[in-house]
C-alpha cells in the first residue's frame, strides 16, 4: 500500500457524474466528464478573490483541496499531441488554486510557491497511439507539471486502448 492511499483520479475513459467517492477497497475521489466542466478563464480569482478556491460555481471548484487531501494523483487520459486530452487538462487547469501566486526559485527556475504543506505521488496513463516524439513530450510535460504542482512522478505509462482505471488502481494498492 502506498504511504497515503487516498487517490484522486481524473479520467476521460468513461463519462460519469463529475465527482464520485471511490468504493472499497479504494479510498478517494474520481473526477469524470459529464460535459458540464467549465474551462479556466485565467481570472486568478482562486488566488486573489477566494484564495484556494476557484470562483466558477461547479463541482470542480475545490480541486486544490482535493489535491491537498490525496496521496496519489492518477491521470488516465487520451494523449493529444504529447499532452493530456481536453477534459483531463481542463481539470488540471482548474487545480492552480493548489499553489500560491507568489514565486519561488527551484532548480534555477521560477515556479509558484506552495499553498499547502503537502505533496503527492503521480501516476499517469496515456492511451491512444502516441508517436515516440509525442511520448517524449508527454514524459517531459509530466515532469514539468510535477515540479510546478509539487508532485512526485511515480510512473508514466503509454497504452494503445483506453484502460480500465479501476484495474489500474488495483495495481497501485
Amino acid at each position: 500500500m502506498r504511504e497515503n492511499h487516498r487517490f484522486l483520479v481524473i479520467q476521460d475513459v468513461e463519462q460519469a457524474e463529475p465527482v464520485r467517492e471511490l468504493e472499497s477497497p479504494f479510498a478517494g475521489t474520481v473526477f469524470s466528464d459529464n460535459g458540464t466542466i467549465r474551462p479556466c478563464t485565467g481570472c486568478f480569482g482562486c488566488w486573489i478573490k477566494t484564495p484556494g478556491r476557484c470562483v466558477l460555481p461547479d463541482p470542480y471548484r475545490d480541486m486544490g483541496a482535493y489535491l491537498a487531501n490525496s496521496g496519489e494523483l492518477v491521470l488516465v487520459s487520451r494523449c493529444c499531441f504529447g499532452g493530456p486530452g481536453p477534459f483531463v487538462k481542463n481539470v488540471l487547469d482548474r487545480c492552480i488554486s493548489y499553489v500560491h501566486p507568489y514565486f519561488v526559485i527551484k532548480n534555477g527556475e521560477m515556479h509558484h510557491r506552495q499553498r499547502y504543506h503537502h505533496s503527492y505521488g503521480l501516476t499517469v496513463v496515456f492511451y491512444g497511439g502516441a508517436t515516440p516524439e509525442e511520448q517524449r513530450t508527454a514524459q517531459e510535460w509530466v515532469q514539468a507539471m510535477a515540479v510546478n504542482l509539487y508532485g512526485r512522478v511515480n510512473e508514466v505509462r503509454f497504452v494503445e486502448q483506453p484502460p480500465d482505471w479501476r484495474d489500474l488502481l488495483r495495481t497501485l494498492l
Partner: protein
Amino acid sequence: MICGSPKGKNSASWVILQGLRDALPPQAAVREYAIRTAPLPEQALRGIAACDVLVFAMPLYVDGLPSHMVGALLQLEADFRETPQKERTAYALVNSGFYEGHQNAHALHMLRHWCRRAGVRWGQGIGAGGGGMLPETQNIPMGHGPKKRLGQALQTLAEAIVSGGQAEDLYITQNFPRVLYRMSAESVWRRKGRKNGLSKQELFAAPGEGPTA
C-alpha cells in the same frame, strides 16, 4: 492570427499578436480570431481553415496548452484532414507568467506534434517568459525597454512569416531583472487581493483540510 487566451483582448497573448501585426507589412491580409472556448463555431472553423498561414498565440496553462485550445486543435485537425491538399504553415507564440521563456517549450512541442497530425508545416515557435507584465506595460513600444528582446523576436518571426520560411524556435526572457520581476509580480497580487478586501495573510488561505464540495 488566433488568440487562444480566454481573456481575449485583455491578455498578454493579444498584446503579443498586436506587436507581431505591427512588425508585418501593412499590406499583409490578416484575419483575427479569438478562441475562448471549444468547440469552435462553424464560422470560425471555416475562416481559420481558409488561411494559408496560422499564427497561434496563447498562454501556458499548467505547463501545456489551455484545455479549450486542446479541444479546438482536435477540431481543426479533423477538419484539416479532410482537405490534405491545402498547404498551411503554422507559427506559434506561447507566453507564461514565469520569468524563463524555456518553460514554454513543452507547449510549443505539443503544437509541433499537432502540426504533424493535421498536415500543417511548422514554421517557428517563440516561448516568452514574463507574460504577466505585458498587459501592464502597453505604453512601452515593442522592441524597447523591458520589451526589447520580445520585439526583436517578433521581428524575426514576421520575417519568417513573410518569406514563408522555417526557423529555430526562440525562447526569450524580458529585459528586466528576475528579482525585480518577482517583486513586482508579488506586489501586483497583494494589490489585487487588497482590492478584494483580502490581507496579505489571507492570500495564504489553504481551505479544505477535507474537501468541501
